[in-house]
Structure formats: C-alpha cells, structure tokens
C-alpha cells in the first residue's frame, strides 16, 4: 500500500482518537466515558488494521479477534453497576424526576402518590417491630 494512503489514515485516526479522549476527559457522566472508551477501543482496532496493511504482516489479526471477544465485557459491567446510581453530576442534579415529568403533571402525581403509600407502609412495618 502506498505511503500516502497510510499517512492519511494515520492522521484521520489520530484526530479521531483525540476527539474520543476529549470526551473521556470531559464526559459529564460515567456512561459517556464508558462509551467513549468503547469507541477508543474500536479506533485501536482500526489502527491495528492499518498497521497490518502497512507492514504486510498479518499476525496482529489474533489481537483483533481477542479484542472483539472480550472488548464488550467492560462496558457491560460498568453499565450494569452504574444502573441504579443516582447521578451526582452537576448538570443533572436538580430533582431529576420533576424535570423529566414536566410535560406530564399527572405522571408526577401518580409517582409521588405511589411513593407516599410505600413510605407509609414501610413506617407501619417498622412500628410493628418487623
């Protein structure tokens, strides 16, 4: 493969990697960072492909195979454990539920009512000495 094409690919991938690293650094939530590092992994796969083409040696294909086998486990794990964590990030702080339900006041009321009932039931349970 001609050197020009390899150079163009290298430049494009460098810019792309810088962009994803920016998102990892900046990303307001944990999930943004996870997603960006996922994309970074796929950019590394692209780098490996370009490298194979440039050097005409194809042993790195095993590495690509391994990455495609186990690369997804990290993000799945983080997504699972980030699942119920209330986001403490600056932008999303002020009462999330209210913000989301702004368009539908009845839904908010329903939710609040259900929560009140649940809380009352819990208090009763504690009083009964369970």
């Amino acid at each position, binding site marked *: 493969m001609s050197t020009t094409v390899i150079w163009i690919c290298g430049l494009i991938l460098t810019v792309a990697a810088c962009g994803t690293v920016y998102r990892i650094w900046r990303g307001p939530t944990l999930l943004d960072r996870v997603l960006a590092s996922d994309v970074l992994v796929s950019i590394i796969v692209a780098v490996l492909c370009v490298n*194979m083409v440039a050097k005409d040696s194809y042993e790195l294909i095993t590495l690509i195979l391994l990455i495609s086998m186990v690369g997804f486990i990290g993000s799945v794990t983080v997504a699972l454990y980030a699942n119920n964590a209330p986001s403490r990030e600056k932008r999303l702080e002020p009462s999330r539920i209210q913000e989301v339900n702004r368009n539908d006041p009845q839904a908010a009321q329903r939710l609040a009512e259900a929560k009140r*009932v649940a809380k009352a039931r819990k208090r009763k349970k504690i009083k009964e000495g369970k």
Partner: protein
Amino acid sequence: MMDAFLNVLEAVCLVLGCLMSLGAAIGLIRFPDILSRLHAGTKPQVFGLMLLLLAVLIDTRSWAYLPVLVVSLLLQLLTIPISAHMVGRSGYRNKHFPAGDLKQDDLRTVIEEAEAEENATDPQGEDSQPESDVDSMRTS
C-alpha cells in the same frame, strides 16, 4: 490491471473505514446526550470494521485469512449491540438527557407505572431514592 484495481479498492476501503472512526469522534463531541452519542459510537464499530477488514483481506491477496476475519467480524457484530443496549438502557433509565429532548416517548409511561407498582409493593426499593425529591414534589 487487476492488481491496480485491487489497490485502489483497498485504499478506498482504508480511508473510508478511518473516516467512520472520525465520524464517531465528531458525533461523540457534538451530540448533546448519551443516547445520541451511542448512535454515533456504533458506526466505526460496524461499518468501519467491515471496511477495514475487507481492506486487510484485499491486502493479503489470499483466501487463507478469510475465516479468521469473518469470525472476528461476527463476534464483533454479536457483542456490540449487547454493550450498546446495556449502556443505552442504563442511560435512559437514569434520565441522562434533557427533558424536552425526546419528541415522542412510548416508553416513559410504561416505566413510570412499573416503577410506581414496584415501589408500592416493595418498600425496600425506596431506600435508593433521595428523600428530597418526594418532599419537594409534595409541597409544590
């Protein structure tokens, strides 16, 4: 003649595949919320990988590497949606997006009803919710 054609095809595949990565990075930077960014993120992982593996296959000029390339592509195709779905589901449930962003949302009421039901039947689930939310809603 054939060789020149293959060379051009390979170069096009390489550059396009790398451009897909660039597109993903641009999407990651420009899109405002996690779910839109997910759309941008799946792009280099699927189409870019297809193009780059095709370029590698053309570069080897033999069929010996086809099985391993197909296997790695298939594994990637099997695993990408899993992580994308997990991240997307988590992002949606944790409301990682501005409120007015979704123009149409078929899922919201379903989830809210399910959550309300769950909270009513299972008081232990209440602990994870901060108290201030409920209180502020009651007073407002």
